[in-house]
């Protein structure tokens, strides 16, 4: 491990020696174990370790980058020389450059990123978990009889970052996931329906049990039996948490500093405005202990922080890396990738409503369980995506629906988020509770 840390610092020095004014090197090492099981048998078992080095050099306010998975001296030397030589091709840009300051990041141990038990999970145990999850899933309902497979994935990795301004940092992290995909068909319609469920965490203790994942998957399949299309209409739309989390991931692209300074966001110029409904608070939190998006510092070495993006409906902050922060006259929020921005834990904060109360408020509308396709234009905010879900009548689920689209404009959708649920949980870097949007167009027949 010491060797990898030295690798980062050594290549910063080498880049400087080759003529770079500033240099930054990130070294990454990760080990993956993938256990895939189907119909009780092992389908695939993959285990491997990979390494890579990424480099940025700056010269006269110009930047060049290079990366390699071949860490031999001769390859890296040639890439470093190439990058320093190429930097002059770029246009001078007074916003280019490394961060100026590096406030101390939180100690990695305080963030719950690494779990020795998760790190030690062996192939036998991964296969057992996957097999058990699938076995239970296929035993619960005769109609749910086919499996796309169950998978258990373990990742452990370490990052070393060093730059010519004296920053040197490192952290290690683990991740674990367990997932199941099932299919079923009921007697009435011979159409196959399918759905999945998964758990993803940093710790072994945090992983949902095979039983929970199996039961949830089966319930998710069962509720789609006999789905039909609905007539085209305007209606309230309730997003269940998994679908709402996808909405958050769409929204993230519109609050990055890069999208804003390039005018590629419908939220450019809206800072300080009441854009969303008053119950909407959206946060990017890089410090949340154990979060899948948690890290002590970003790819540029800037310490992680908790950034309110929307507070009670008001757009408070864009998420910036060093470059976009300089362009917008703001401060980096610790979301830099050296090439745009990445989320940490980006979520819609829990609201006051029980999910049942949200459902109960809808006389006639759609409950979205899955989304399909792209169809989000961040420049205009236009939103149109394929959907699966359940039709709501008089506050209750009436029947499942499929082959429909939901459309609207993200700005209006934010303003129309009239009820935010209390059921927030983190299954991904993006998370949201149940949320109701006052009105969208549902297109069907």
């Amino acid at each position, binding site marked *: 491990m010491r060797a990898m840390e030295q690798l980062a610092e050594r290549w910063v020095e080498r880049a400087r020696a080759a003529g770079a004014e500033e240099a930054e090197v990130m070294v990454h090492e990760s080990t993956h174990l993938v256990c895939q099981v189907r119909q009780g048998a092992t389908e*695939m078992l993959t285990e*491997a370790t990979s390494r890579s080095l990424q480099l940025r050099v700056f010269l006269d306010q110009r930047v060049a980058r290079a990366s390699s998975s071949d860490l031999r001296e001769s390859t890296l030397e040639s890439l470093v020389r190439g990058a320093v030589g190429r930097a002059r091709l770029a246009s001078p840009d007074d916003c280019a450059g490394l961060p100026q300051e590096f406030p101390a990041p939180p100690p990695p141990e305080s963030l719950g990123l690494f779990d020795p038990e998760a790190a030690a999970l062996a192939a036998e145990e991964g296969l057992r978990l996957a097999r058990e999850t699938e076995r239970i899933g296929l035993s619960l309902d005769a109609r749910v009889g086919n499996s796309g497979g169950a998978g258990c994935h373990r990742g452990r990795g370490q990052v070393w970052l060093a730059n010519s301004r004296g920053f040197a940092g490192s952290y290690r992290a683990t991740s674990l996931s367990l997932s199941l995909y099932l299919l079923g068909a009921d007697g009435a319609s011979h159409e196959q329906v*399918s759905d999945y469920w998964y758990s993803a965490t940093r710790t072994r203790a945090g992983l949902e049990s095979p039983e929970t994942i199996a039961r949830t998957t089966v319930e998710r399949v069962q509720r789609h039996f006999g789905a039909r299309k609905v007539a085209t209409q305007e209606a309230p739309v309730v997003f269940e948490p998994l679908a709402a989390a996808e909405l958050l991931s769409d929204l993230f692209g519109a609050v990055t500093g890069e999208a804003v300074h*390039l*005018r590629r966001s419908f939220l450019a110029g809206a800072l300080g405005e009441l854009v969303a409904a008053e119950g909407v608070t959206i946060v990017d939190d890089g410090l949340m202990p154990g979060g899948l998006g948690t890290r002590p510092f970003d790819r540029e070495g800037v310490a992680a922080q908790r950034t309110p993006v929307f507070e009670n409906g008001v757009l408070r902050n864009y998420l910036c890396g060093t470059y976009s922060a300089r362009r917008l006259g703001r401060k980096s929020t610790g979301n830099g990738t050296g090439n745009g921005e990445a989320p940490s834990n980006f979520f819609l904060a829990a609201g006051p409503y029980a999910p049942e109360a949200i459902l109960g408020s809808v006389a006639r509308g759609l409950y979205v369980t899955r989304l399909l396709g792209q*169809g989000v234009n961040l420049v205009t905010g236009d939103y149109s995506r394929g959907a699966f879900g359940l039709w709501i009548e008089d506050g209750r689920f009436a029947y499942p629906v499929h*082959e429909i689209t939901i459309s609207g404009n993200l700005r209006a959708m934010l303003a129309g988020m009239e009820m935010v649920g209390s059921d927030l949980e983190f299954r991904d870097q993006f998370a949201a509770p149940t949320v109701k949007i006052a009105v969208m167009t549902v297109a069907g027949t």
Partner: protein
Amino acid sequence: MSAQEFFQRVHGLDAALLERVLAEALARGGDSADVYVEYRRHTSVHLEETLLKETGESVALGAGIRVVAGEETGYAYTNELTLDALLGAARTASAIARGGKTAAMNLTPRDVPARYSAEEPPADGAWAQKSAFVRAADAAARAADPRVREVSATWNDEWRHLLIATSVGELVADTLPLFTFSVSVVAEDNGNRQAGLPVRQAGWKNRGLRAGIEAFSIQEAEALAREAVAQATTLLEAAEAPAGEMPVVLAPGTSGVLLHESVGHPLEADANRKKLSVFSGRLGETVATELCTVVDDATLPRLRGSLNVDGEGTVPLEPTVLIERGVLRAYLQDRLSARLMGLQPTGNGRRQDYTAIPIPRMTNTFLAAGTDDPEQILRSVERGIYCKAFSGGQVEPAAGRFTFSMHEAYLIENGRITRPVRGATLIGSGTDILQNIVAVGHDLVMDTGAWVCGKGGQGAAVGVGTPTVKIARMTVGGRR
């Protein structure tokens, strides 16, 4: 230096060494094993806001070793091409094997056709030429219309040597070029403000070919930039798209993404073997109107999905007719699924890179030309949508529900294209769509856009194509 010479001279990977690795992979049993070795160089040049923002270069090197036993696959990979590292990966991959005895055969080099240039990229990186492309696109876009506010242009290319050795004695090498040029613009209409801000729209065009820099020019960069501007400015005038079921006419070329999603993915053999697809068990059945013949063809010259050899050493490749005049004839097969289904491999075992196992994938997939006159097709529609450009699609193969998202589309009224509509998603089911294709034009176009297909976490460059097509009825996800 050929790929085989490169791996032998630079990395010492000769046939004897690879045979040793294969023998180790099968030492604990298993039916077959293969080694996939890859060296990839990638370069990029990115411009935005008239500034040449950055250039990049990367190298990827590694080998993946696979052991197959029955339906089970063991896989491991390494960044180091030393004998020790390769033997270690072979042992890890063999963890799934038990019992049985399969001896690896001696390796014999196989002939590989040359459908694309294997020429090594210029030693100087051709950086000046690549920079000239992005600058030319920027200048052309800004000159095309005063409403253009932002332009970004990016050149990406890669050059990949690969070497595949299999336990049945095949030794196959290939060198694959690939480039992508993308230009994206934002146009702003100050005369039309909403919520206090000028109305903005984005337009984008890209080109991607299985070729090197010699296949692109300043003129093409400029032409793509002007097309992107025309798209953005057209969209500035666009009305809301309609919502509900109506006839849809697909423009030739990029609309092939519809076939890719609705038919291509559900015909992948892995999904069919596991009965996860709406087309499972339906070989020989009529699944589409007689007008539909769908082909996957890696042998077309220089397209994104063109290949000399697939990702598991299958050579020579041939076109695969998936649907012939409405009848389902074949699935897209890799070796594993073909063996388990008792069918022939079709050379569709593709892999993103050495970290990933081969899985059944499309190459260049298209709907064959029909006999209808494109003008007549339009004239037959009283009220519907004409789709010209797409931003992508997705399918859920179990029931075959798929979407594709139009970026540039027009209203058809009384047989004529009248006005542009804003982007929207279309949704349908693969089986219904094929039964609803009621006219197929004679104007087949293979698209040259930079399509990337995603499956199981792996990306792959693919080609799509279609003539003008009329779908009698499909749900359009607009707002009006």
